[in-house]
């Protein structure tokens, strides 16, 4: 059935070259940094465009107000009220987090820098992202989404220089 067993076995005899010993150490450093402060977004590294965020939140609030307004109007409408009595329990307006995405749309390597009190150089990488947070009200099915641009600067340790 398999006509290719010979070529498959020849291919399996080929051994890929080993990556440099440095690779594991670099990945380890990066992962250790993840648990520490370096990769945690700090105020001076994480600049939210507050104007955009404010505008997004305001727009979301307006949408919510209109939604509630529409519900109230519908409830007050005599025709509808006569046919469908209002629910005995009010619908809880509880929004729960439903998702978060971060789209990196631009990354720039700004080269090597020597931080203060350090002899080891670091590479500064600046990235621009569009971050989106979503909430959902499971009772009503309503959802709320906020998007804002952000800028991150990461300092990546460099060795062997």
């Amino acid at each position, binding site marked *: 059935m398999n006509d290719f067993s010979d070529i*498959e076995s020849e*291919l399996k005899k080929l051994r*890929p*070259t080993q*990556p*440099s010993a440095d690779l594991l150490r670099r990945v380890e450093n990066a*992962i250790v940094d*993840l648990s520490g402060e370096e990769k945690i977004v700090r105020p001076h590294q994480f600049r939210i465009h507050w104007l955009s965020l404010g505008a997004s939140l305001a727009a979301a609030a307006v949408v919510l107000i209109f939604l509630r307004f529409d519900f109230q109007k519908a409830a007050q409408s005599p025709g509808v009220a006569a046919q469908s009595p209002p629910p005995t329990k009010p619908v809880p307006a509880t929004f729960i987090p439903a998702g978060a995405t971060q789209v990196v749309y631009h990354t720039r390597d700004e080269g090597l820098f020597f931080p203060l009190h350090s002899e080891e150089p670091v590479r500064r990488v600046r990235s621009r992202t569009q971050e989106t947070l979503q909430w959902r009200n499971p009772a009503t099915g309503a959802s709320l989404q906020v998007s804002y641009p952000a800028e991150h600067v990461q300092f990546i340790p460099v060795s062997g220089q």
Partner: protein
Amino acid sequence: MKDHEEVMDNVATHEQWKTVFSELAPGLVLFARQWVRSSADAEDIVQDAFVKFWRRNHKIDNRALLYATVRSTALDLIRRDSRRARREVEASADVDLTIAPQFYVDDESQRALICALDRLPGEQREVLVMKIWNELTFAEIAQALEISQNTAASRYRYALAALKKDLERVQ
């Protein structure tokens, strides 16, 4: 969303990543080498992708996602640096045509096989690399490449057929 404690806990309880990474690294670098000329660039891609993969707190055994992350990181790098890469390729074309080897070569037949591998279409080669040297199943390959399992299996068979034909022609 993850918080700091969760990330810390994740690192503390998944120390086995080193063992897993050491086992996967040669195959991952070989996989990344399909899109870049140098081992150093391939290692950079693998490093970025693995950290990205880890940061998202994916299970270490989700290999399809890991390879998909390596692939997308490599393609992002190509898109981002296409102009720079083009300049580098043009500049290096006059100076140095040597590409770092991807395999240890024991004899001439292996050298011929590697040359034939290099001549495969990219979509066939990536399936072959994932299957032979990374030991992914067709289901995992299909998931990583966002294709059907049948397509993955077909590309694999086409790749083997092409290699066989190429080697027969050379001999």
